[in-house]
């Protein structure tokens, strides 16, 4: 048997669903739309019962994908029973949907949820009376407390064995004869749920009217009679009005409300959270705390306080996002101290002296190890860099150079939970890679390479940020479940409307600064498909944590003429500016849609439920792991193959310089030529790095290092560096993010998005490079062109604003 759960958003469907199905639950997508489809089974009734959690809806009108999905499911797939969850604290509006469900030929049980809240407030709902009026069983329950949930199933099981014919609360209306007329025709045609369909035809439902034009014709003349009533002959309005009138007239006596003068807790909380002046600052604080808990390595600001301003260099600011572990930071500090010492002591000769000192220490370590019968630690002593040495050896090097190890004590704060979990995850995946290396030791080089360098390191790149993704999700889920998210949309809507987005789009975009993957998955809460597409399209422009190392590297290279941290800041700013311009462009030249309505419920605040949160996280985790283990892995292995084999791949592995990827890079070099950063003989290395960045954006830096380009050896002009940075900022994000975009965009929207990313990266880099080039060579022309550009953007603003006014006026 199959039961469906239907009800308003926030009526407790998912809570009930989780309580009933437990571990059997599984989430997919409804075909063709990005609406979650939850399915599971219930086994306590002798027979296994499949349960489907329909999307939350207020009505069975055909205006949102959720409504269409729910309606088609009930009409076409004919569940054995529909369990209609009704929020007992809000009967009036919830019963509106019930009156529509009752019109379908399907057994219905009304589950009166949130009874705990009703009882606590001292109110009463008369379930027996309600059941008599509705003509279907009504069961009281509290999904949250697990009270009455099995009674609902038992009742549903009982009524599922019988057929039920739909009936309507509209029977007493004077236009009911129109409905009967159409209903009879539907019965003749042998259609399912004739009454429901008849009412839809009378209402003028687009989909059904297109399908049965003869029935529309049938009642056309009858409809004329109502042309001059209060609704101007609009039957949608007349039907909705009739339903609410019926509810108001009949259900008042099933509820006993104690009129309380004091305001509810929810009201009190809301007074603060959406306060006219404090709302926005409060929101900023909340988001800062969330980001801080996920990405900060210094939870209690110990570093900032003890070191004062000295610690807040550009790099430290970036570390907040990258979340390096203790060893990384110690290593960085140590290499910094050593390098500085040599520069101070030897000036121009510093590099040579340092190299010989490195050789000396490395050699000494090797010899000592050999003496103990162990394997040597450093193979290639001549090319050894400080960063490649073990910490203990660095300490020895410092002592050897006459320094003091005690001097090296970076003040490390207590890491945030996110950073802590991340380093733990890194530890696990690191061990996994070691294990892989051990297992594959005797394998042929290509096979062990495939396992260690391809599969395992690829997965490492993706899984290392999984803890932070999940944690970010947990916080978002808390904000969502508590009811705050709806308020955020309320607070921010005005600011976003000019961009063709609603306030709800703000959270995903903001999360983009952390990681695009959860950000894109969070667009699920947006109602309109095109708004979801647009938000996903803009998300990667909000520079994510993994891109920070690229900026850090380039900041060093660009410095000299201006400060590194200004460079980094300007990149973040550039992302936001281009996102805004993109939104305006898409709005100005895309199909102009009706501005999506913003008429929504602000649900009462709830304390978030641990069980629901965990179920939610578990869902996301499964989803992510599934993606990572299929598409993403395949893509990573492909890139591994391209970078380790030449065109004659049967002849075995080659260095990356001779790989297929390198030759692709050389082709790309010419495509990128107008963008400046691939000029010169080393240009192909930059184009290769843009490809490997698809695995994870940190890999841009890693690949360049492999090819011999570090922050110290970048030989690009500032204009070229800027163009390279903006290319990486706007181009395709990593595979994980592309996967997320694919999962949550519409089919067509996804391809446009890919093109948009590619086009945007090319065009913006082109503009930036040539603008910079002009500035570097012919300053005056550069300034004029820049001014023209700014003027164009302002015109764009004005143009879209005008167009919007026109749409609104119509």
């Amino acid at each position, binding site marked *: 048997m199959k039961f469906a759960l239907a009800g308003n958003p926030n009526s407790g469907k998912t809570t009930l669903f989780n309580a009933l199905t437990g571990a059997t639950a599984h989430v997919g997508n409804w075909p063709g739309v990005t609406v979650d489809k939850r399915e599971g089974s219930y086994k306590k009734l002798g027979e296994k019962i499949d349960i489907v959690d329909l999307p939350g809806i*207020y*009505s069975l*009108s055909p*205006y949102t994908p959720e409504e269409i999905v729910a309606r088609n499911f009930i009409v076409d797939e004919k569940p054995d029973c529909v369990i209609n969850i009704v929020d007992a*604290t*809000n*009967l*009036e*509006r919830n019963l*509106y949907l019930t009156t529509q469900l009752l019109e379908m030929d399907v057994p219905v049980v009304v589950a009166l949820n949130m009874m705990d809240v009703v009882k606590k407030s001292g109110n009463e709902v008369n379930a027996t009376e309600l059941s008599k009026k509705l003509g279907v069983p009504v069961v009281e329950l509290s999904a949250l407390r697990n009270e009455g949930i099995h009674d609902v199933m038992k009742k549903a099981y009982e009524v599922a064995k019988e057929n039920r014919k739909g009936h309507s609360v509209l029977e007493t209306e004077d236009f009911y004869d129109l409905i009967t007329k159409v209903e009879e025709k539907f019965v003749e045609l042998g259609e399912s749920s004739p009454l429901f369909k008849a009412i839809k035809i009378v209402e003028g439902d687009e989909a059904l009217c297109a399908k049965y034009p003869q029935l529309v014709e049938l009642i056309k003349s009858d409809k004329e009679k109502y042309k001059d009533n*209060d609704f101007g002959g*609009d039957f*949608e*309005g007349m039907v*909705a*009005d009739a339903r*609410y*009138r019926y509810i*108001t007239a009949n259900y008042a006596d099933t509820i006993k409300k104690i009129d309380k003068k004091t305001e509810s807790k929810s009201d009190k909380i*809301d007074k603060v959270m*959406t306060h*006219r*002046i404090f*709302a*926005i600052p409060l929101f900023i604080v909340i988001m800062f705390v969330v980001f801080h808990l996920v990405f900060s390595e210094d939870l209690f600001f110990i570093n900032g306080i003890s070191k004062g301003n000295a610690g807040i260099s550009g790099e430290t600011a970036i570390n907040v996002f990258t979340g390096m572990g203790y060893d990384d930071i110690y290593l960085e500090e140590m290499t910094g101290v050593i390098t500085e010492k040599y520069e101070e002591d030897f000036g121009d000769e510093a590099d040579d002296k340092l190299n010989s000192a490195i050789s000396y220490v490395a050699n000494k370590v090797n010899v000592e190890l050999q003496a103990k019968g162990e394997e040597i630690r450093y193979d290639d002593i001549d090319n050894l860099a400080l960063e490649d040495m073990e910490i203990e050896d660095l300490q020895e090097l410092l002592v050897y150079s006459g320094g003091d190890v005690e001097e090296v004590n970076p003040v490390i704060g207590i890491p945030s939970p996110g950073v802590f979990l991340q380093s733990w995850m890194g530890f696990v995946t690191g061990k996994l890679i070691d294990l892989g290396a051990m297992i594959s030791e005797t394998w042929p080089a290509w096979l062990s390479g495939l396992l260690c360098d391809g599969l395992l390191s690829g997965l490492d790149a993706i899984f290392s940020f999984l803890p932070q993704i999940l944690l970010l999700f947990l916080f978002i889920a808390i904000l969502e479940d508590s009811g705050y998210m*709806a308020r955020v949309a*309320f*607070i921010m*809507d*005005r*600011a976003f*409307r000019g961009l063709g987005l609603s306030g709800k789009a703000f959270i995903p975009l903001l999360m983009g600064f952390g990681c695009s993957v959860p950000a894109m998955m969070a667009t699920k809460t947006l109602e309109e498909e095109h708004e979801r597409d647009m938000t996903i399209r803009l998300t990667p422009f909000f520079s994510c944590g993994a891109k920070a190392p690229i900026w850090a590297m380039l900041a060093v290279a660009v410095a000299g003429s201006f400060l590194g941290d200004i460079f980094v800041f300007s990149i973040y700013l550039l992302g936001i500016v281009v996102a805004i311009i993109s939104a305006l462009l898409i709005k100005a030249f895309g199909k102009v849609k*009706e*501005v999506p*309505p*913003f*008429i*929504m*419920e*602000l*649900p*009462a605040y709830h304390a978030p439920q641990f069980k629901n949160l965990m179920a939610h996280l578990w869902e996301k985790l499964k989803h992510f792991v599934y993606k990572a283990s299929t598409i993403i892995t395949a893509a990573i292995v492909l890139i591994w193959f391209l970078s380790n084999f030449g065109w004659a791949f049967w002849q075995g592995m080659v260095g990356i310089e001779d790989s297929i990827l390198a030759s692709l890079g050389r082709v790309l070099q010419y495509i990128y030529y107008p963008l400046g950063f691939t000029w010169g003989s080393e240009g192909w290395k930059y184009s290769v790095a843009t490809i490997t960045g698809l695995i994870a954006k940190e890999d841009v830096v890693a690949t360049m290092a492999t090819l011999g380009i570090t922050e110290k050896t970048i030989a690009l002009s500032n204009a070229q560096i800027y163009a390279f940075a903006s290319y990486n900022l706007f181009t395709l994000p990593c595979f994980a993010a592309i996967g997320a975009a694919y999962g949550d965009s519409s089919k067509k929207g996804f391809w446009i998005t890919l093109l948009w990313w590619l086009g945007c990266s090319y065009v913006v880099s082109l503009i930036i490079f040539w603008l910079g080039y002009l500035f570097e060579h012919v300053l005056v022309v550069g300034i004029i062109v820049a001014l023209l550009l700014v003027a164009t953007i302002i015109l764009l603003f004005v143009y879209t604003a005008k167009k919007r006014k026109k749409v*609104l006026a119509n």
Partner: protein
Amino acid sequence: MEKRLNEFNVGEKGIVRKIVAEGNIRRRLFDMGVTPGANIIVKKFASLGDPIEVTIRGYELTLRKSEAECVLMEVE
């Protein structure tokens, strides 16, 4: 006295008389219970002055001023 919902101040009460919107917005307003005869109290404005929050049929509803403009009210 008749007034549109977007002209209400915080704390003002009224009864819905008529909806003058079209299509999507009209249907959405009806579905959320904004039908003739419904009581509405304006609760607050968002920080930037728009959208507004109202109490209707015992729950909190938010809508933009442009949408509230379509709701003709009888002031109480």
